[in-house]
């Protein structure tokens, strides 16, 4: 990186030989039995060895919260930083070391309450890192206060009469902040989650994945309607690029646009499949529109809302560094000498 190049060079681990086990640490996992975090950890550990990246090149950075204990359980490099600030720490890492695969793990409180500003800025800067937000709609670690994603009326420790703050929808917010990759999945939906994680890993730029996660101690069942076998085909819609938006047990229902571009649910048979909304990941407006499909009026979309390519912050930075190399005066002595005179 500098002319002296004091930075060591390595013979890297062969990623092809890596297995899930290589990503498991010797630390006891300290989440409550039944916590949704376990499943997410398992899926991440499954996806890691498939990405062709040597283990030592992964860095997991987190803030504070139950979810933020995640790095301790990943046999990679990791920083368990302070509450809300992981995106900033990760930005510093990536700015220095574009060669690393940097993953930010955060919770709904960590990312959207105290850390809301860094969240939004890392997205708009499009720093090349993966940002996994474990949304359990509660503060788990501090034992059950409502969070910025808790629905209005949530009775939690700090809101005995019910919360009165209208929640943030992380996907809409991310799109509003010009994120280049925005997706959503569910802790227990192992296959879907793995697919989304892979797509995120492949994205060059900030890949934001909201993962609904059950906190079975302080907010048990928050996503039951979305995971329950009975209800889920009506409450969840899997979106896919280029496909018309359909859901229901037999995909008999669809989403179409009504007046003022308000989305509406239609019966596919009578309305006609060709008039349904076709999901377009690359259209910002489509992503925004789909993000506004919210319970109880609409099924909850999961999948990739938006994915476009825009040069990442670190990439642009490296380009500037490269361009600057053509400048003369690369020794500090030259700068020191500026405007000097000699006393004899």
């Amino acid at each position, binding site marked *: 990186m500098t002319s002296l190049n004091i930075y*060591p060079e390595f013979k890297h681990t062969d990623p092809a030989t890596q297995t899930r086990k290589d990503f498991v640490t010797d630390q006891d996992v300290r989440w409550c039995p039944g916590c949704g975090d376990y499943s997410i950890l398992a899926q991440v550990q499954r996806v890691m060895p498939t990405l062709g990246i040597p283990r030592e090149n992964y860095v997991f950075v987190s803030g504070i919260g139950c979810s933020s204990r995640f790095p301790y359980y990943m046999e990679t490099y990791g*920083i368990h930083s302070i509450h809300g*600030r992981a995106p900033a720490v990760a930005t*510093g890492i990536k700015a220095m070391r574009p060669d690393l695969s940097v993953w930010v793990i955060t919770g709904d409180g960590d990312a959207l309450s105290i850390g809301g500003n860094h969240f939004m800025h890392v997205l708009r800067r499009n720093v090349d890192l993966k940002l996994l937000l474990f949304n359990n709609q509660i503060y788990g670690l501090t034992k059950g206060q409502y969070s910025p994603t808790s629905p209005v009326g949530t009775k939690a420790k700090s809101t005995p009469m019910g919360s009165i703050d209208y929640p943030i929808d992380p996907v809409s917010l991310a799109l509003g902040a010009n994120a280049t990759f925005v997706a959503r999945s569910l802790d227990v939906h192992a296959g879907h989650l793995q697919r989304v994680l892979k797509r995120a890993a492949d994205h060059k730029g900030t890949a934001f994945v909201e993962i609904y996660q059950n906190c079975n101690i302080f907010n048990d069942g928050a996503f039951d309607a979305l995971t329950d076998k009975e209800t889920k085909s009506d409450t969840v819609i899997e979106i896919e690029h280029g496909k018309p938006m359909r859901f229901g047990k037999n995909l008999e229902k669809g989403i179409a646009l009504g007046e003022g571009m308000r989305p509406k649910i239609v019966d596919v048979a009578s309305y006609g499949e060709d008039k349904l909304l076709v999901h377009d990941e690359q259209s910002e407006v489509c992503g925004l529109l789909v993000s506004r499909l919210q319970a109880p009026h609409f099924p909850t979309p999961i999948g990739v809302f938006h994915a476009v390519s825009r040069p990442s912050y670190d990439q642009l930075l490296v380009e500037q560094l490269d361009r600057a190399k053509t400048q003369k005066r690369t020794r*500090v002595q030259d700068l020191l000498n500026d405007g000097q005179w000699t006393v004899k």
Partner: protein
Amino acid sequence: MHKAVETVSTVAIRFAGDSGDGMQVTGSQFTDTTGLAGNDLATFPDFPAEIRAPAGSLAGVSGFQIKFSSEAVFTPGDAPDVLVAMNPAALKVNLKDLKPGGLLILNSEAFNAKNFERAGYTKSPLEDGSLKGFKLFQADITGMTLKAVEELKLNNRAAVRCKNFFALGLVYWLYNREMHYTVTWIAEKFKDPTTREANLRALKAGYHFGETAELFDRNYEIKPAKIEPGNYRNIAGNEALSLGFLAAAELSGLSLFLGSYPITPASDILHELARYKNLGVRTFQAEDEIAAICSAIGAAYSGALALTTTSGPGLALKGEGMGLALMLELPLVIVDVQRAGPSTGMPTKTEQADLMQAMYGRNGEAPLPVIAAKSPGDCFYTAIEACRMAITHMIPVILLSDGFVANSAEPWRVPDMSKLPPIKVRFHTEQKDFAPYARDEHLARPWALPGTPGLEHRIGGIEKQHLTGNISYDAANHEFMCKLRAERVQKIADSLPPTEINGDASGELLVIGWGDSYGAIRAGVENVRAGGAKVGHVHLRWINPFPNDLGDIMKRYKRVLVPELNLGQLVKLIRARYLVDARSFPKIQGQPFKEQEIIAAIKQQLESN
């Protein structure tokens, strides 16, 4: 007419005008030229608040003082010998400082009824006798500037703007300076040929006016100072800090990373370092101070020479991040260019009141090394030393500068990079027995970069087990680690050279200072010593830890006096540590110490039995 040339040894000039009048440019041009002329010098730019005040108002007055001499210069001077006042407001704000009998040069055009009113004069100062006692010279600087650039057909506003160069030319003549440097500077600075030409003409017109007009019967010569041979340049504090960090990067072979959020008076370091991408410097303008320090933490973890720069209110926001950096034991330099507080305070004014915040502004037992720069040129070495300690001890270091040091300038011997000792960096790569919180002889832990095969490990802000770095809630371990972290700071003292004492090595009074008061204390101590008093002066570079010999040094004096631009902060640390009845000499006016203030305080100590 052939005019007389009088030789004098020392002169202090203050240029004062409206914010828009270009006084800072005038001042720094005069500074560079005077440096080239071989004088020793010191400067003090004093700006108004950041927002432009109404034209002609008192709040809008911008000043620049320079003292230059054929002798050694320690301060920009208490009371100027010459005051150049571009308008009535400038006169009103600055006249009280002018030496009795001093030269007063007024831009007569601006001394009109409207400007008197704006400056709050009910009567013209030209007529009320208040200027009696000074050598008054009135010149229609605006009018003559307009004349000089007439042919260029600039619009009036642009033409009037050139008047600071007229004033500069006049003063160049008055002090026998070469115009060469400024001529070149103008040629490079102004891209538009007409503007360039206009400024040049104004400069020369001013010079020739001095030469030919009957206003002045003589001009002055200040012989070069006797300074050690070598290469010199003028340097301001923020510039020197930036160069120091660049030097530290080169000496260590590390890449520089600066995470910063703009704030007066620290922003210039960001601006300066942003220019050196060619040296591999990465500057990141973060969304706030918290992101700034956190990004620097991430960079340090990744192998950068990492910095964050700010001023007091920003340092307040970095407290939690500093605690994290301390727990992670990463090398990091946190720069606080202090300004007058509390809260928003007076952003463009100087102060030394963040020392306690630097020492204690974090939760828990969270000691960090604190180093302070004493002068513009010293900033360079302070930056290098802060980096060296940060890297060697794997510890975040707080570097204190302030608005005065940051913006004032002095001639400075250009260092020879090849003579500066390299900074040794050891990245850990050995897998065998790797422990993230193992210790070397400095109690530093290994710097193991992500990307290193086999050294995967996790660090964080929760208390950690000795050696392994695993989370630990063990009672004895916590006490051990807290004491270890304190000892880590203390360790720095062991590698410090013996403390330098200016003046008497024992005697009646020891004056202990830190930071920007160096020049004033140095000069003040010399002054009273010349009168026969036995006084010593220690200027602390490291405030945490104190040098190991400080306690013994204090014992050699009857009294200890601690002048500070605050209500007494260092003095508290000294009293608590050494149980010595050190007396505080506080000043908290947004202004640096004057030599006379220090002299008076010393005398008071010497007299009070």
